[in-house]
């Protein structure tokens, strides 16, 4: 079995995640889709790590996880804030960012 399979799988998951980000309105679900994309990236990293026979890829995946965790923490905090002020978690309701 070729490492390419893992990479194809990752690409598929990444694309699904991207579609989710674009389609879903619930901020939390959007966030989950972002997580999916990150995980897809991690999968490639780990697959490549095995392919090359060193652990740098795993280290990268580790860092990605940490960053994702930090991002989730801050992101969810923002969502909570948003919900408090707008009583909604829909990304479409926060549409003041325009000219």
């Amino acid at each position, binding site marked *: 079995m070729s490492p390419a399979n893992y990479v194809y799988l990752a690409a598929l998951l990444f694309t699904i995640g991207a579609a989710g*980000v*674009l389609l879903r*309105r619930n901020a939390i679900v959007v966030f989950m889709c972002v997580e999916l994309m990150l995980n897809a990236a991690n999968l490639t990293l780990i697959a490549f790590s095995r392919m090359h026979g060193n652990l740098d890829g795993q280290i990268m995946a580790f860092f990605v996880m940490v960053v994702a965790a930090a991002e989730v923490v801050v992101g969810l905090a923002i969502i909570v804030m948003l919900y408090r002020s707008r009583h909604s978690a829909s*990304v*479409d309701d*926060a*549409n003041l*960012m*325009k*000219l």
Partner: protein
Amino acid sequence: MESLIGVLVGAPLLGAAVLLCGGKALDRAGHWLGTLLAAASFVVGAVLFFGMLGRAGDDRAMHSHLWSWIPVDGFRADVAFQLDQLSMTFVLLITGVGTLIHVYSIGYMEHDERRRRFFGYLNLFLAAMLLLVLADNFLLLYVGWEGVGLASYLLIGFWQHKPSAATAAKKAFLVNRVGDAGLAIAIFLMFTTFGSFAFAPVLANAGDASEGKLTAIGLMLLLAACGKSAQVPLQSWLGDAMEGPTPVSALIHAATMVTAGVYLITRSGAIFNGAPDAQLAVVVVGAVTLLFGAIVGCAKDDIKKALAGSTMSQIGYMILAAGLGPVGYAFAIMHLVTHGFFKAGLFLGAGSVMHGMNDEVDMRRYGGLRKYMPVTFVTFGLGYLAIIGFPGLSGFFSKDQIIEAAFGKGGTQGWILGGVALLGAAITAYYMTRVMIMTFFGEERWRTERTPSPDRPDVEPAASVRGEHAEPHPHESPGVMTIPMIVLAIGSVAAGAVFKLGDSFVNWLEPVTQFEHGHPPVSATVVTTATIVALVIGVGAAWLQYGRRPVPAVAPRGNLLTRAARRDLLQDDFNHAVLVTGGTHLTRSLVYTDNKVVDGAVNGTAAAFGGLSGRLRRVQNGFARTYAVSMFGGAAVLIAATLLMRAV
């Protein structure tokens, strides 16, 4: 001796500077200072004249180089003077008549609070006019040329509080400016043809240049002369210029400045000699103006405007003579000088009449004034006799010569020109007799009131009706005014005979202008006789119309020609319709264009960008998902581009 030439110009220039820059302290003595400096200039001129007489005819020209003015690589203009016989003639005329008119103005302007400034302007005029005739190159002549224009502008508009005076001044300057442009172009042509525009090299080498060039230069010079000398088609300003004080009309718009065109053509004789087409144009202009001015002069009721028409006509004679070439130059200048005397005298007389009549200018409000103003009557009468060419007086000699020379042109042209000149002489006699009769003879029409009647709303009410003055009490003017009139009257009587005596004047000018005898198809005696006949006809017609019958106090409507002549033969109407109205529309549309089209193009571009960004702004709709789409789309495009680059 040469260094005195500078003084000629310098003295009045100093006077102008002092009088115009000096404060009110000079108000009391300013007029004397101005007169003194004018007289000083005359004295210097006389000294130079006698010095000149002491030398041989070919050796009389003097030069004085003052300083290098504009030296730019190949283009050299200097402030340098040249005093030859032609210039000398003018110097004496200008300073002489100028001084007399200064004296006259002391009386005439006595009650004007701005008299100091008036004398300053008069001095400025003298300086500019002397510069004009003394310059040794065309550029310096141009300085004098525009300088007299400025002085004329200032003096016509001297009573600036009158809108009509201000308008007339502006008109005079503008029309002159058109002529000035012609002079400028003539100078450009000289520079490109000869590499110089000093008299000596240009005139000496004129024969070498191509006839086309010379014709072009000649026509441009003629344009300049038309402007300054009020010749058709640039004559329209002269009548309006009578808004100025009467001494100004006498000095500038009769005796000196308006004859500058004749000077220019005579001075550039060498150029015209090489360009027969240009000469023909000069002659035509002179002949047309001669009739034009005379006809206008017949119809005007304003005494000054009638005289202005006469001036135009007389200068037409001079231009006509100058256009005849070496045959006529000397006669043109001779008529110029005699005209300087009698026309200045006539204007001063008119001024004296107005002075006694509360500034009334309408001759229909005059009549029978000979009893009240004997000196004015006599001097005016002598001037009158001189201008109509009464045998023995100055006008007779000078005008007769011109008519003879015109016939001498030869062929059909000669007959036409001679005929026109003869006709002009008859009309001159007619309108001058009319002026004379209406002013000094007949019933005393100034005693009757006159108001504009409903059917003639264009009639200007009499001065007394206008409420400006009370009923006039005609009286003789003070001595300071009559003495210059007497001197000028003597000049009008005697100058012609003196000049004619032994052809002294022609011989005097001959080294500068050359002279050749014309060959008229008929003998001189016949021409003289014809002239006298024309004179008699003119006087008779005028007497029949105005002497035998009482002059109506309100001008009759008159026939078509009269009405047209009253309106300066419709030239102003033409100018107004074509130039003023057209110009106004042009400027208005250009102002509109500048705001809407030129500026609009720029503002439109700005607005287009604004509109575009307004559209693009809508893409920024605030929805995070839309932004996300563009982000992913961008990423997709980038990946596509990378893949494509690799593929290629």
